[in-house]
């Protein structure tokens, strides 16, 4: 960050660049507040980036808390309006197996349940449920076990969570907010029992400085207790670790709701060009900055998936995604029965610390509503009269629908490449391509799997705060495809290094960082077909590119 940020008096400093932090920054900035956001790693690199990526209507709340279902469905509809480009419809089926207790009765009950859920379907542009016979189910998805006696279908939406965070940050920045990733809050500036700002340190450059703000909003997700500790207070959460397995392709075009060995609900569903199986939910008290998937977690998910989709182990599991949920604290409940409720803590009323708020809990699908609530609290404390427009004003990419064919022609690009870009950037697509016209290799592909062009990579560095190759991955899906960065890692590092004005050592650091980060997700699941890919990746990085040699210094 630039030194002049220090001289500005901010209204709100937000800590955390997940969906809560960026959502709150956007809402505050749109209501006219002067906002600055700090994220110690990257936007959506924590709990947000590791979540299932669904904008759902909250079916699970239907039984005990129908109002939450209503609000979730309503907000799901709003998110579709403000970010239509980032969403993709996922038709789901909930199969009933003959081994289930009283399967026919269970199927009836399920249908009754989804009949009730249908009432909310119009709010989120979903199709009503259907009841599928065994044959109909097998026709839709032949991979499902012959043990299925039928299924109920329903409709939800998936979303690119990384883009959702970045677009919220972009929108906040359009309204004057300062966004600083790789910038860690190391201390809260206190005057007595009042928080007056933050001391931050750039984790990549080491730059440090103080930033003053009237209010500090702690939206650090699973790291929030640590930030609260800096203010001398204690906010308890019930951290729950969750992993997802990611396949190299779509095993199915529909989502399947399955039950694990302990009866927990797990999803297997298409997501972009991949397929994900998850999630687990286990209390976690280890190091938040170095999460590891265990064999038990991986086997738990595979077993569950295999129960419903017998040939799942024949697919290539490409990587494992690991995150920790910042669930609200509760004693005496098992992990799965914890509701995804959220709460805004005003520490002035809670424990007499002025100028400090914390948001905890919640779920992706209602991030916008939660941000609105938190911003309402902020506004009432600061006497700000602005009204919330986050449900009506589209995010930067949601303002119009780009003409993919026309753009492809104009920039002599592959239509598929443009359509993937339009999925990520919506109405911004053409502007991004325009911004690098005249520069060499503008439409050259950096990542061939996705694909991602050089223009998009450069744009992500210049306009979206990308500073490492994993940052580029989050913004563009570069390196997330079947080759897991084998072909694009070095290319991307060159472009990024060039944009950032880094020397050779800096570029080496970028390469190393990315390959190590991918390995962390690949190594625990190395099996079967993925072993061949790993051998090829290592042969490329080590034998052909001799990257280990340039890094060993």
């Amino acid at each position: 960050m630039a030194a002049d940020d220090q001289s500005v008096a901010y209204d709100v400093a937000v800590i955390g660049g997940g969906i809560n932090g960026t959502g709150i920054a956007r809402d505050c900035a749109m209501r006219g507040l002067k906002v600055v956001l700090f994220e110690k790693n990257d936007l959506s690199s924590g709990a947000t980036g590791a979540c299932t990526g669904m904008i759902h209507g909250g079916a699970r709340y239907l039984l005990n808390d129908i109002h939450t279902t209503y609000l979730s469905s309503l907000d799901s509809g709003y998110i579709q309006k403000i970010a239509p480009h980032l969403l993709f419809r996922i038709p789901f089926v909930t199969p009933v197996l003959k081994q289930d207790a009283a399967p026919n009765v269970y199927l009836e009950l399920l249908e009754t349940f989804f009949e009730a859920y249908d009432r909310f379907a119009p709010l989120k542009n979903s199709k009503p449920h259907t009841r599928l016979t065994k044959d109909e189910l097998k026709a839709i998805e032949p991979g499902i076990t012959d043990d299925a006696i039928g299924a109920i279908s329903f409709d939800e939406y998936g979303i690119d969570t990384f883009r959702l965070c970045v677009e919220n940050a972009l929108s906040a920045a359009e309204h004057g907010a300062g966004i600083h990733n790789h910038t860690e809050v190391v201390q809260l500036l206190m005057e007595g029992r009042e928080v007056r700002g933050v001391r931050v340190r750039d984790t990549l450059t080491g730059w440090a400085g103080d930033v003053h703000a009237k209010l500090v909003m702690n939206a650090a997700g699973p790291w929030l207790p640590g930030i609260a500790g800096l203010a001398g207070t204690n906010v308890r959460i019930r951290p729950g670790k969750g992993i997802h397995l990611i396949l190299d392709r779509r095993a199915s075009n529909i989502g399947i709701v399955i039950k694990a060995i302990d009866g927990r609900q797990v999803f297997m569903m298409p997501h972009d060009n991949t397929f994900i199986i998850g999630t687990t939910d286990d209390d976690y008290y280890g190091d938040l900055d170095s999460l590891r998937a265990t064999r038990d977690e991986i086997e738990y998910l595979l077993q569950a998936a295999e129960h419903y989709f017998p040939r799942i182990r024949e697919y290539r599991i490409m990587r494992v995604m690991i995150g920790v949920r910042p669930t609200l604290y509760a004693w005496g409940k098992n992990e799965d029965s914890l509701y995804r409720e959220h709460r805004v803590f005003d520490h002035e009323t809670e424990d007499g610390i002025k100028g400090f708020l914390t948001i905890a809990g919640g779920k992706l699908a209602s991030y916008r509503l939660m941000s609105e609530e938190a911003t309402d609290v902020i506004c009432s404390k600061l006497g700000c009269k602005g009204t919330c427009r986050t449900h009506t004003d589209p995010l930067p990419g949601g303002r119009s629908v780009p003409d993919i064919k026309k753009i492809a022609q104009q920039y002599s690009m592959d239509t598929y490449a443009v359509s993937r870009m339009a999925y990520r950037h919506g109405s911004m697509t053409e502007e991004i391509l325009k911004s690098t016209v005249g520069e060499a290799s503008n439409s050259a592909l950096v990542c061939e799997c996705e694909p991602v062009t050089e223009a998009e990579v450069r744009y992500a560095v210049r306009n979206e705060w990308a500073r490492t190759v994993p940052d580029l991955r989050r913004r563009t899906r570069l390196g997330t495809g079947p080759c897991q960065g084998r072909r694009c890692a070095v290319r991307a590092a060159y472009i990024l290094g060039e944009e950032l004005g880094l020397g050779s050592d800096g570029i080496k650091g970028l390469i190393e960082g990315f390959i190590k980060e991918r390995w962390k997700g690949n190594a625990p699941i190395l099996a079967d077909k993925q072993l061949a890919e790993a051998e090829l990746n290592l042969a490329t990085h080590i034998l052909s590119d001799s990257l280990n040699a340039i890094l060993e210094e």
Partner: protein
Amino acid sequence: MDYDVIVIGSGIAGTLAAINAARTKRVAVVRKGYGATALSSGAFDIAGKGGRRGRPFKGILSLSEAIGNILDNEPLHPYSILSTAFMGDRFNEFSGMVRTIGDQLFGELGADGMRYEGSWESTAIIPNQHGTFKITSFCQSSMISGNLTRLMGRAILFIGFERTAVHNKTRASFISDTLSKYGLAPFKSIDCANIDLQSHGIRCDGYDFISIAGMMDNAEYSKRVLGILRQSLDRMEYEHVFLPPIMGIANHRDVLKMFTDSFGDTVSEFMSPPSSAPGLRLQYALDRLLARHGVAIIDGDAAGTGPGDAIKTIRVSFKDGRKASLSADSFVLATGKFISGGIVNGRTWQEAVFGLPVFIGTHRVRDPFPMGHLTDDPFDKQELFSIGVRTDSSLRPVDANGRTVYKNLHAAGSVLSGYNYLYDKTGMGTAMITGARAGIFSAG
């Protein structure tokens, strides 16, 4: 008997086994497709880092020094295992054998138009596009003039193609920084430039060098590309030019001749990652070698059969669904590691065709979960990739007690344990030597 010897796999190891056995026997190769050899850089690194860690340039050893180190320090390396059969001067006898096998292979490949150049005394240093390089004993002749040790003091230029790779100032300074850190300096200059084939109306719709190489097999296409290169390079200052490996694949011999006629030895190919044209060229040349030695090539998936202390037949499944049983006196297993499908894991780890036990070091591996054999840093030596079958000094697979599993089965190449080619860089050498020896053993 259908054949005297059946070899499973046709990469470097399988081909060497087959042609060596074919001197006296009727031989067939059964293969389910191309494997790691076809994906390789096509260069032969015989003894790699010689068991030494650390930066390669600082530690570059002569080939004989490197082989000596392996024999002294790595008792499980297939080189060491093979050398235990020698009674006298283990090192000299083994080194002599390596040279004999290599000279013979490169001689045969050269006679066929796939010329390899190199030396048993020193190693060549061929750069890639990242400013790092591959240390290699023998490489394709289209690369040898790019040996950096003989280009010191010259003005060198790296060429890329628009839409395939970024070759700009950043890359040029990266390359020169990296090379100078290895003591590979000074050069008069190191520069990078891009050539845009598409703007000259030449189709360049592949994003990998290998797709351009494939199109270069077409004489008309390669003539036009050469013309543009000539025209572009005439406007640039250089004493040596590194091109991506695009000098044809199936038609490499003719394409190379066009380049040599036009540029002499001032233009060479740099090393590129998989899948690159040189690897495929080598594989095609191996196929021709098999044919020349009268080896039958059977495209099918092999599976071992039956109990007992000797293999009588294997089952082969063909792509069209047909199945057949093939019998032979002896068999060679040259099925590679993971890329080629030689080692598989499901409920446990095992060798794919005969279900042989597999080892990491002397440890029999059963537990399918990999994490115990991996570390957090992919640049560390990852033990998992040294997994494979263990053999006696005649390359016959053994069980956990060291007992020979089948008396008429020999194994070669990366299906073997005891070395980790990704890190020790002896992959091609080991495949070549163990392949030739397995062929000789199987022919009795």
